[in-house]
């Protein structure tokens, strides 16, 4: 009798909707998880809620006006996005950037990487169930960095500070001293996060062994940045294809062993220490005097016809700008290769046969920026 009753039950996968307004999706991202009991059997991501057509908008703007849109696309690593854009235009125009400007760019970009990773540490702690604690430790330190950016560029988030051929204006007089002050706070923050999370058994139990990706899988899925390095591939554009003045610094590329969520956290933590070291070296080598804008730049920038792809290592991975110009002062076509979008494409494969609750952790470990996914 009982056996007959059981036989008549139908087993179906249940779709569970998550997002678009869910605190763990880090923005307006919606995914439909097909669950069989507690396990995910399929993930259907829905993106595009933040689509503003930024690339198309930038085609209608000249090379100075477009910089503001780079900030708004990648709002946690604005300097990286700006750097890729101005580098693309500089390569097309064959502009030589003064050394001092290059150093300041590197310093600010690395500090920006620190602030972005602080954001990750805070948000990842919340995903993993540490609730507000990691956030309250990471955010004050991020605030010190943002105060520095505000002093230099004038804005807390939308810096619009890099220009084609250099920088918009000179840094403040006490810039070097302020950087050292801020770095002290930053190192304190890294120690705090390290002590709070790295050896915490609950955190390890929540992170270890989930969403693991082998190096082959990571490469096949086109991952980049800390996601790729956590899987054991030591690929970092700052080292492998040095741009700007990155070839003058000594730093290491942290690599993970298992490619799971915990490794991605560890890689980012170590990357923060390396960034601090890069900034310290750059501050030492920074020329005290010198121009900050390339000489003989026309008032209205015009590029020769051609196409160029410039890429930088943003905190999330390879941020690239593909620029086609048919001459004139505006890009004919502009495409931004955003690491968040490419990393997100691996979400389905990572979530398969993982627990429903772990899908949140996997998504959190990607450190996506939805503006950068949808553009």
């Amino acid at each position, binding site marked *: 009798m009982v056996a007959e009753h059981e036989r008549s039950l139908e087993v179906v996968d249940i779709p569970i909707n998550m997002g678009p307004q869910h605190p763990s999706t880090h923005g307006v991202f919606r995914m439909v998880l097909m669950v069989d009991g507690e396990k995910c059997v399929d993930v259907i991501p829905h993106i595009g809620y933040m689509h503003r057509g930024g690339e198309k908008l930038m085609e209608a*703007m000249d090379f*100075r*006006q*477009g*910089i*503001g*849109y780079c900030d*708004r696309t990648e709002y946690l690593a604005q300097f990286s996005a700006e750097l890729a854009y101005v580098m693309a235009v500089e390569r097309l125009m064959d502009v030589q950037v003064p050394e001092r400007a290059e150093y300041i760019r590197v310093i600010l970009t690395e500090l920006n990487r620190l602030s972005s990773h602080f954001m990750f540490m805070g948000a990842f702690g919340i995903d993993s169930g540490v609730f507000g*604690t990691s956030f309250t*430790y990471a955010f*004050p330190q991020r*605030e010190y960095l943002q*105060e520095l950016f*505000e*002093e*230099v*560029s*004038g*804005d807390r988030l*939308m810096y*619009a500070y890099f220009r084609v051929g250099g920088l*918009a*204006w000179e840094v*403040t007089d006490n810039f070097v001293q302020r950087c050292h002050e801020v770095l002290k706070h930053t190192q304190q923050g890294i120690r*705090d996060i390290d*002590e*709070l*999370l*790295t*050896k*915490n*058994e*609950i*955190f*390890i139990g929540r992170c270890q062994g989930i969403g693991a990706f082998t190096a082959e899988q990571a490469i096949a899925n086109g991952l980049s940045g800390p996601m790729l390095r956590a899987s054991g591939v030591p690929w970092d554009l700052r080292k492998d294809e040095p741009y700007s003045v990155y070839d003058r610094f000594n730093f290491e590329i942290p690599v993970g062993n298992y490619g799971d969520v915990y490794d991605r956290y560890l890689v980012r933590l170590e990357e923060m220490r390396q960034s601090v070291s890069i900034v310290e070296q750059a501050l030492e080598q920074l020329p005290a005097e010198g121009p900050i804008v390339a000489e003989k730049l026309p008032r209205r920038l015009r590029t020769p016809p051609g196409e160029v792809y410039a890429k930088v290592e943003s905190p999330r991975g390879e941020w690239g700008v593909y620029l086609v110009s048919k001459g004139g002062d505006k890009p004919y076509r502009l495409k931004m290769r955003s690491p968040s979008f490419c990393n997100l494409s691996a979400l389905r494969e990572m979530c398969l046969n993982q627990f429903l609750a772990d899908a949140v952790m996997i998504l959190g470990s990607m450190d996506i920026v939805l503006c950068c996914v949808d553009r």
Partner: protein
Amino acid sequence: MIGIMRSMALVMKVALTRKPVTIQYPEVHREIPNRDRAFPILIWDEEHDEPFCTGCHACERACPVECMTVVMKDNPKHAAGESKRRKIIDEFWIDYARCMRCNICVEVCNFEAIGMNNTWAGHELSRYDRKDLVMDVEMLLSQSKDGKVDPGLRA
């Protein structure tokens, strides 16, 4: 277990030794840096008692979001021989709701006539209607006229 104990020890240590970094915002205002970019304002020429702006449309053309409208007129003071400016602004509107605060208008200005507001008055602009955020020439000049603002960033 040791890891959890260490985490809790850190939390105790921080709770006892560090002061909060937050401030009670509406009552207490953070000091904002000199270069702060709030929203563009027009600057008043004390010497000639008229705005610096000649209405040359440079900022209007360079604006990425097209938030500005400039109307130029002949300067009556030039006819009277009191000023060297032939032309002067008649009307100037900036839609603060559209402005993306990129500082390009300040960079392109040849007369240092426009600057970024670096006071709290430039940030606290909440309005009930977005039409109220379209600023006219009096509103744009008033803060500089009263000597309340000295923009840190100029062309």
